[in-house]
């Protein structure tokens, strides 16, 4: 069952990659990257059980903690863009 889970995760990652490549819009790619992140957390956790080495869990934990920072970075970038556009229109 563990092996099946790992295979499913790999499949889902491939699908996310298709989206990341196809877009169409840049936020679809961001979403794909974010989806990829949570799937990596699960993949590493599952692999740690498959191979019987629980110390891998630390790596999964790191992802669970810092995965969403890059989405927030994207949010800040779009905001700055809006503000810049706003100041230009105002001027």
């Amino acid at each position, binding site marked *: 069952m563990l092996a099946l889970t*790992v295979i499913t995760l790999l499949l889902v*990652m491939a699908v996310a990659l298709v989206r990341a*490549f196809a877009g169409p819009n840049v936020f679809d790619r961001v979403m794909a*990257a974010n989806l*990829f992140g949570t799937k*990596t957390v699960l993949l590493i956790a599952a692999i740690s059980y498959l191979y019987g080495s629980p110390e891998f869990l*630390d*790596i999964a934990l790191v992802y669970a903690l810092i995965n969403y920072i890059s989405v927030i970075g994207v949010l*800040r970038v779009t905001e700055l863009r809006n503000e810049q556009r706003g100041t230009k229109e105002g001027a």
Partner: protein
Amino acid sequence: MELLVNSVLLMLLVATAGALVVVRGLLASTMLTSVYGLLSASFFVTMDAVDVAFTEAAVGAGVSPLLLLLTVAAIGRGEPRAAGALPILAIVLVTITGALLIIGTLDMPPFGSADAPAHTHVAPRYLQLSGEEIGIPNVVTSVLASYRAFDTLGEVLVIFTAGVAVLLILATPGQRGSARPRYTPGSHSEPHTILQVVSKILIPFILLFALYVQFHGEYGPGGGFQAGVIFASGIILYGLLYGLPTVCRVVRPAVVETLAAVGVLLYGTTGLLAMLDGRPFLDYSVFAANPVLGQHIGILLVELGVGITVASVITVIYYAFANQFEMAEG
């Protein structure tokens, strides 16, 4: 099973690399870079290279996309289409180099072969004797912080130099080679209530997890490099949500710049202390009568130095980059 996982991950890796080349738009490329980081980390995990995977997790998928995002924010998202005909020279050069590299791998010993030079030179000694000589479970840390401590000192210096170089290039004019915010804009036009409240809860745990990684490098994956990166990403998260001026008030740029040097100095001083006692540089046995205990103390100290330097340098680089785009904004 292992073979299947490895080959699928490698195929995805190649696909991502291909997509990175084709995709236009810098934000999209940044996201693909982060996917690439995640994939290589998973790949390293399946290869049992846990410490490398850890670094890749923190750097390749965490901090470097963030720094790229800040760059995109500063320079804009578009990527001009290359004008003119196919870059024939580049294609020829890349093909030849690639072919040479592939031919080069033919001379390498097969993967995992026991009589490969890498496995017959010093590795057996590390694996067999590190338990007695150094007495910590994670051999990677033994090699990194004790047997090869001098190499690691070099790496820390490289990171420190990189930080200095970024400061020199991106320094705010008139501030003696330092990147500090010059003005204090008001609070954000719209507060991110949800993000701020959730991050308020998560940031202390990110920071504490970094310290956990720092001090458990002897037992599990991790150590100073990874810890520094995770710590810095906690600070960057705070900066993204509360603005550069606030984060600069909490974690002062002057302090961070000093700490970057303090970390390197801590590492170097640990080595010098051994020389004062007439032993070779970075020989930790002087710290205690029992050599194994001495190794423990020495490794803890140099790892702390690494952690401090890495965390500070990444924070410094973040300040310099963020300052750049906040100036573009103002």
